[in-house]
């Protein structure tokens, strides 16, 4: 068994294509060593063939079946080994897409493993000290059991923090607009400074999103809040609107930050750091990833033979999902409308008790009390409707936009697959090339596999995030209603003694 030497021994290790990587492999040793060193970041460059790379994504390659057990299963959940852990791995370590198309330079930054992610502070190795002697599968699994991997990265394991705040209005001769401050804190190597603070306007976000769509077509890009607002109906500069938009923009950037591939995108980096974004934009530097480049050139016009079941299912799901969300949006709007009309009546109702109170002697105080009470309930109701409008509806709409953009990515995937199928078929007809599949068709196949892998991984993460987001959103809805009723309850309970007061005195 090889002793664990210095970490530098393992950097830039080259592994053979599809090498079987077993329990005694250098990689395992490496990772075990890493497990004992909480503060070291490690880059592994591994040369891998395209298929292996794609396989890693799908959890089917031998390497992944090695690495994954080591990294561990998530706590308390079904161990869908491939995907779940892969999700973690991808999230934490993925830098750039697998460059599976240019066999001359199969540089693949695979395991950008951050110890802080693998090892939690409470992890104690079975023998204490270096894990050199603990390379047997048994101890790997005991390592596993100690590892607690949450779905979320919490503060201590993240290395990139982005916040949107401080909206400011700018008045120029040509136009008036709002900018937001984007604060970035990061320890990643891609950032020259540990901290950045820039100002961006909506246009810039829009630009970023298009760039991301262009350069990462195989991934799901989070949605932006709606671009156009009907002038005159909505006040673009009102506090409520600006705040709602700020929250949505913040969410947008955080979603990108959380994404293991998108967060390393060059455009994103520039967006966060450049002093003058406009200059950069004008330069028109195309920083497309290879995948982006290749997928961009996929032409449409190919007819899809058969969609893989899982993507068909995703498509159907998204259709129904968007439909249901649309219905919920309409219901919520209706409720708000009814509540506002109720509020209007309440605002007339309360003061009538006041008017009555002025006529009376003994009843004056009780009636005035009722009037004030109804006034308090009115205020509480207004707060409820405001919250609903500002917090509930926008998130709902965001998800509708999200599923729309996801559907277009699905379409793109279909096209890529269709092209591959068409080319394959064309080849099949040309008998000369029978025994060997031409490089071009192979490229297509790889494209398809990459796309599928990226999409599946993103879908999974999306599903998880969706679940959490909706859980939070709906619990928030319930909370707001509870708070409303609690305010009203308090108001009415407090006047009971007032109403009863003189009663007893009589």
């Amino acid at each position: 068994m090889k002793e664990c030497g210095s970490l530098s021994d393992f950097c830039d290790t080259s592994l053979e294509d599809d090498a079987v990587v077993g329990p005694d492999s250098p990689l395992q040793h490496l990772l075990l060593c890493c497990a004992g060193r909480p503060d070291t970041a490690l880059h592994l460059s591994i040369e891998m063939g395209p298929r292996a790379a794609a396989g890693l994504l799908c959890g089917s390659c031998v390497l992944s079946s090695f690495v994954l057990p080591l990294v561990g299963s998530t706590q308390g959940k079904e161990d869908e080994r491939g995907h779940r852990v892969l999700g973690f791995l991808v999230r934490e370590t993925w830098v750039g897409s697998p460059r599976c198309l240019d066999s001359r330079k199969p540089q693949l930054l695979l395991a950008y493993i951050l110890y802080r992610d693998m090892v939690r502070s409470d992890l104690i190795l079975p023998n204490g000290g270096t894990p050199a002697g603990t390379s047997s599968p048994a101890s790997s699994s005991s390592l596993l059991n100690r590892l607690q991997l949450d779905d979320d990265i919490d503060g201590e394991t993240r290395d990139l923090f982005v916040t949107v705040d401080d909206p400011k209005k700018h008045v120029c001769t040509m136009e008036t607009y709002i900018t937001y401050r984007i604060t970035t804190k990061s320890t990643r190597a891609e950032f020259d400074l540990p901290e950045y603070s820039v100002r961006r306007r909506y246009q810039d976000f829009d630009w970023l999103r298009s760039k991301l769509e262009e350069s990462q077509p195989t991934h799901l890009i989070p949605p932006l809040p709606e671009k156009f607002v009907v002038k005159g109906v909505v006040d673009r500069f009102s506090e409520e609107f600006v705040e709602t938009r700020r929250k949505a923009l913040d969410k947008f950037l955080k979603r990108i930050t959380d994404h293991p591939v998108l967060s390393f995108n060059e455009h994103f980096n520039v967006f966060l750091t450049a002093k003058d974004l406009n200059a950069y934009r004008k330069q028109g530097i195309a920083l497309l990833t290879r995948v982006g480049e290749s997928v961009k050139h996929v032409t449409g016009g190919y007819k899809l033979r058969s969609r893989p079941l899982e993507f068909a299912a995703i498509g159907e799901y998204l259709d129904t999902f968007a439909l249901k969300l649309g219905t919920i949006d309409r219901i919520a709007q209706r409720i708000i409308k009814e509540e506002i009309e109720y509020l209007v009546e309440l605002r007339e109702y309360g003061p009538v008790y006041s008017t009555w109170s002025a006529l009376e002697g003994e009843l004056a105080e009780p009636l005035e009390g009722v009037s004030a009470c109804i006034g308090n309930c009115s205020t509480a109701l207004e707060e409820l409707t405001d919250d609903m409008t500002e917090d509930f509806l926008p998130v709902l709409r965001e998800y509708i936009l999200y599923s729309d953009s996801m559907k277009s990515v699905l379409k793109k995937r279909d096209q890529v697959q269709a092209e591959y199928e068409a080319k394959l078929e064309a080849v099949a007809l040309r008998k000369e090339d029978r025994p060997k599949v031409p490089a071009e068709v192979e490229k297509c196949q790889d494209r398809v596999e990459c796309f599928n892998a990226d999409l599946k991984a993103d879908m999974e993460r999306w599903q998880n995030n969706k679940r959490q987001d909706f859980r939070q959103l709906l619990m928030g809805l319930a909370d707001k209603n509870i708070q409303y009723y609690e305010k009203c309850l308090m108001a009415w309970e407090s006047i009971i003694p007032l109403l009863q007061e003189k009663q007893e005195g009589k």
Partner: protein
Amino acid sequence: MEQAPPDPERQLQPASLEPLGRPDDDDLEAAVSEEAEGAQEEGSGVDTMTENNFSLKKIEISVSEAEKRTGRNAVNMQETYTAYLIETRSVEHADGQSVLTDSLWRRYSEFELLRNYLLVCYPHIVVPPLPEKRAEFVWHKLSADNMDPDFVERRRIGLENFLLRVASHPILCRDKIFYLFLTQEGNWKETVNETGFQLKADSRLKALNATFRVKNPDKRFTELKHYSDELQSVVSHLLRVRARVADRLYGVYKVHGNYGRVFSEWSAIEKEMGDGLQSAGHHMDVYASSIDDILEDEEHYADQLKEYLFYAEALRAVCRKHELMQYDLETAAQDLASKKQQCEELATGTVRTFSLKGMTTKLFGQEAPEQREARIKVLEEQISEGEQQLKSKNTEGREFVKNAWADIERFKEQKNRDLKEALISYAVMQISMCRKGIQVWTNAKECFSKM
């Protein structure tokens, strides 16, 4: 409060009873039940009433049933109307058992007749009002149809309330016609009409005119009339807005029911989120359907307010009566004064004021002394008659003011008590509604947390 002429054998228990219509009052709950015979418990409108032979009895009155009937009306046309069963029970002191003594059916028009009779015969009393003839201040879900079962039910309660108020009034409870109303089914109408009370009724025109020409009304009554006008106006406004509020609130709750349906549909495509969504949807359904009971309870509150809206009218009537009497008095006094003057003029032969007689005298010469004497004599008779009348009118007027004001004081106290009770029960209803709301949303939140 007016004291009855001392009579050791009579016992009055006025005003300590609260009539029906308040959900909190346990005593009266039983009387509100819809069960007919046998379901009546102790406590509905307990009061004493005397019969002609002054025996002490406690009486319970209830309007226990309502029934649709068809019959022929005055012009021999078929009509549908509702009849109400009035049951009277006497409670024996000894064992507290109640025995059904009388039971008869009356329709709304007979109640009206009774009330009109009381209005005319007791003009100084603030006579309890009847429940509304037609449904007013309805919000959309409530029916404005007089035959609607909910309306009939609320009217039944209102009629019972009316009888209890009359029975608990120290003066009205002793009225013979009222007693007969409860006990004599047939011929009651004829008996009432035979009293000739309609003749005593003031003509409406006269009643209206009086307001404009009274020189010296009792200030308290003027203020009170003003108050009753304002009260009517503010309470009707309140009832109108409340009906709109109820309408809107209904809308808010019902729309939430749509969440139930869509959550259910959505849960079908979700794996992990499905259960949480589905059960939350169920709670939304519960929420939506809870509004029906809530608003039904609130109608009760509206009815209590309505009673006092109508009471304001009764209050106004007493004030008007005073004005009428005062007007009568002033007219009589004026008449007397002018007659006295005439007499004086005739006697002294001076014509100070213009009169036809004076003119003709001037034109055609003085009349003969015998004629003059005759006329003076007639005038003097009229004057002495007039003075007596004036005196009795004055006494009447003062009596009226004294008695009326006593009843008004009684009424004020009753009103303050009742309305405070009503406000308290309204607050309690609101509290209950808030608690239900918190409960439902807390349940929903828990379901969401399990998503």
